[in-house]
């Protein structure tokens, strides 16, 4: 059985179910309690769990991120909400130097079972400082896991998996996905990290995406179908660990790969995937791997320019056309 839930409701269900199951789990962040969540993800949770377990913080990301790490180190299981991942930049040291490294630098003595979550990447005309795709920075860091669901069912299932994991897990959500509806299975549905899914099967080209860009890739695939091009869309769901098996298997069928993500083109998840695929499936490729990313500038406010900076379905379609025009090399 399934129910239709919005993305934010699916996230909330994951937190509520895990907090019911395990009293070591608590939620902490700005406006998560009395305000009911800046984006209403935690709506109603303060009433259900009280201020001990739904903890409003002052605006002090480095402080409460560090509080979470310390609490996790001695056995609690914090969920730290960033109002947006943009603001995690001031807590970067806590995530990089403490959460990610604690286990290894203590010789494996201490665990850091913590979840950091919040909306990531662009929203709508919120300007250069509120539109970062932060996952590229974090996915490079050994010691962390990073997930980026596109659908409500995965949002719930991956967040549950993240809360149960004994390592630090970063959950990249999207402001523009919070209202999106989808079918969510009833009961326990823990989605394992490191497993991509084929969101749409196809045979001519593989388009890899995640989070909101999975929807952009699906729009592009629908447009390409009208041109007689069959595009396979892989929704990564998890960036670290990365499901290279599913990507490689798809490329071995389609022989062409386009990676779509927000964030700048220099380095990042797309570059990582390109590296792995050229190493693991060099002979399967009929064309260079292309990436569709945000343009290489800070995000502008102007609506037209902002839309031009973000990856759009038409840019994905044009990129696939370029790829197909090469034919078999």
């Amino acid at each position, binding site marked *: 059985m399934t129910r239709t839930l919005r993305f934010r409701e699916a996230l909330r269900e994951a937190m509520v179910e895990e907090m019911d199951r395990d009293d070591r789990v*608590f939620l902490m962040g700005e406006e998560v309690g009395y305000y009911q969540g800046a984006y209403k993800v935690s709506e109603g949770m303060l009433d259900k769990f009280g201020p*001990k377990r739904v903890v409003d*913080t*002052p605006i*002090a990301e*480095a*402080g*409460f*991120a*560090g*509080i*979470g*790490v*310390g*609490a*996790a*180190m*001695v*056995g*609690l299981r914090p969920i730290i909400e960033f109002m947006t991942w943009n603001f995690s930049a*001031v807590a970067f*040291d*806590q995530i990089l*130097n*403490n959460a990610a490294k*604690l*286990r*290894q*630098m*203590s*010789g*494996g*003595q*201490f*665990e850091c079972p913590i979840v950091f979550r919040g909306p990531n990447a662009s929203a709508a005309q919120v300007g250069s400082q509120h539109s970062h795709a932060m996952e590229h920075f974090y996915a490079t860091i*050994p*010691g*962390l*896991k990073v997930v980026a669901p596109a659908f409500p069912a995965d949002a719930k299932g991956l967040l549950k998996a993240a809360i149960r*994991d*004994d*390592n630090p897990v970063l959950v990249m959500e999207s402001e523009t996905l919070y209202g999106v509806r989808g079918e969510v299975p009833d009961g326990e549905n823990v989605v394992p*990290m*490191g497993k991509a899914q084929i969101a749409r099967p196809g045979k001519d080209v593989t388009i890899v995406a995640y989070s909101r860009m999975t929807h952009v890739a699906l729009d592009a695939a629908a447009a390409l179908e009208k041109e007689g091009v069959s595009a396979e869309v892989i929704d990564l769901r998890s960036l*670290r*660990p*990365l499901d290279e098996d599913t990507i490689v298997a798809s490329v071995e069928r389609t022989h062409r790969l386009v990676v779509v993500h927000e964030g700048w083109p220099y380095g990042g998840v797309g570059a990582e995937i390109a590296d792995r695929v050229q190493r693991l499936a060099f002979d399967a490729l009929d064309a260079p791997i292309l990436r569709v990313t945000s343009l290489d500038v800070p995000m502008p406010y102007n609506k037209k320019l902002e839309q031009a900076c973000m990856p759009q379905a038409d840019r994905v379609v044009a990129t696939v056309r370029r790829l197909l025009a090469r034919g078999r090399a």
Partner: protein
Amino acid sequence: MNAEPHTQSMMAKTSPLTSGGQPTLDHLAHLYREMLLIRRVEEESARGYAEGKIGGFLHLYIGQEAVGVGALAALRPDDYVVTTYRDHGIALAKGMSARALFAELFGKVTGCSKGLGGSMHMFDKEHHMLGGYGIVGGHIPLAAGVAFASKYRQDGRVTLCFFGEGAVSIGGFHEGISLAALWRLPIVFICENNEYSMGTPLSRSMSVEDVSLKALGYGMDRDRFFADDVLEVERRIGEAVKRAREESLPTLVEVRTYRFRGHSMSDPAKYRTQAELDEHKRRDPLLRARASLIEQGAPETRLEGIEKAVEVELADALQFAAESPDPDLGDLEAATYKGPFAY
């Protein structure tokens, strides 16, 4: 709250571990032994560094022993401690063995952190030593989080968080202390003011001379005193620990101390005069503790017995570290994640 923050301490009037209002000889002898062990461990560390057995950064605790030993004497064994990269003395005072410490310094798999942490990252889960940290101020919010967990679970434990006066200017100090005060966390913030943040004296790094004043803005209790007498450190930190344990209130304590060596092994400490150093060495808390033991009637033979025992412990630890194997490359991925490596 300390009414006379500038008063250099005299002998302790009371101590948590005294009988009849006077410190017992045995207790002071115990603290003297701990301080001496730290002093000698640090001297041997300097030698090991010069001989190339220890790499990287090495920040010695020589001169500051009374702070760690006195403060940790005020704790229960299950209380938590978090500190900076100048962590050898604190780790030993918390119960880590000299074997585990030297093996870590030598990068051996038998070290407290399997040789993966090094000088700046002394962790000992069994003794609730939650680590030395290498980013100035970054561990202060973390320590507040440990205290948050104690309050959440109501486990009655207190967290001590050590840092230098050089950490007071960075954001982590402000955010960690601010949240601890807001949420009334059971923690004692101990600023080991050794007068220099690396080569910069306090007068050139802070707009006020009294670090404990910082507590006022947070509505937090504070204290300020010299660390010349280890029993006084124990007594004063004990008051803050009691406040944390019984009232769940944090305290900022500025303990004034001095490091006899440079910031790290690469620092010749040319920014201070020999006269200044000599003046502090005359006030050496270790020698003061020894003199106090003699004054109170401890026979010289007893002290020599302690000193010999420390040398034996040291020699055993150095040999253990030297003979221990290195960690394997294969240990790295397993230490990084619980469960399968995430790639």
